[in-house]
């Protein structure tokens, strides 16, 4: 019973990941992280519902609640940052920000 849900969760997570890595729009990248959250939520709840050992518990759901909070915070802060970045450079292209690159290289 566990497998289908977990597999779908994994697929969602990986799709989000692929999107995060390949898309250049900052907003879409953020959206993709939300997609990964969705996959995780499915997985958490599925593991809580169909545990490998012992009785089903609520822990997965509770963790998902916290995850929601984190996602909300992240969205708020992240989008604020996106706006700020957009204001700085006038573009949402992730390639425009390469300051992590070592100056000497």
């Amino acid at each position, binding site marked *: *019973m*566990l*497998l*289908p849900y*977990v*597999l*779908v969760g*994994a*697929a*969602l997570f*990986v*799709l*989000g990941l*692929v*999107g995060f*890595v*390949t*898309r*250049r*729009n900052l*907003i*879409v990248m953020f*959206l*993709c992280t*939300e*997609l990964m959250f*969705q996959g995780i*939520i*499915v997985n958490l*709840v*599925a593991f809580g*519902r169909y545990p*490998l050992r012992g*009785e*089903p518990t*609520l822990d997965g*759901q*509770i963790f*998902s*609640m*916290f995850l*929601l*909070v984190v*996602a*909300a*915070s992240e*969205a*708020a*802060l992240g989008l*604020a*940052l*996106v*706006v700020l970045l957009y*204001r*700085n450079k*006038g573009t*949402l*292209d*992730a*390639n425009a920000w390469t300051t992590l690159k070592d100056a000497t290289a």
Partner: protein
Amino acid sequence: MSGSALILSAAVLLGAVGVYLAMPGSRLSLGRAALVLLLGAGAIMVGSVTRMLEANQQVWFALFAALGLWGAVRVVTHRRPVYSALYFILVVVAVTGMLVMMHAEFLAAAVLTIYAGAILVTYVFVIMLAQQGGDSAYDAHAREPLWGCLTGFLLLAVIANSLMEPATGSAAGAIELPASAAGTVQNVGISLLTTYVVGIELTGVLLLAAMVGAIAIARRRAGEDTAGEVD
């Protein structure tokens, strides 16, 4: 490698090729082929696992899974951010459906409310704010789609293979849900305010901090009005 694992791997491979082809700016712009591949991959995958479920759940699960995956693919591949956001709602709805199937009713409601009602709206606002000019070049061309798809789906293949191991398979049988583990408001509420009460408090602090942070970041400082537009 068992047969089902082989089938799953094939599905993952198909999906990978499909997503790659569907990426914006893909050099081989074979829209239809992508569609066919993705549909095939989804069908194989969903089909192969749905059979494990009890009969009364099979249809619902297939529906939600197909919806969710389709939505997810479109979120990732759509050229226009607004559409990505809207497809994301589809994903949220599908996930909500699956949560309900797993008796996480309260959580399902919360997810739907928070994501669709709050977060997505924020996204759409920001998209509106930042991208009034319609299509842009960076949306039209994905960044290194080949590598992204390759590594991403390789990860998925590894995970899928791990999941097909006997240990996971042994949990395939139906498990009776005790009343205390049902995701009712009551159960969740008790758990949150007893076992996880410290976590709840901390969550409050986190939200407050996030709020303060968002305001501090987004506030337009005096004299900065034109600074951004120069570049």
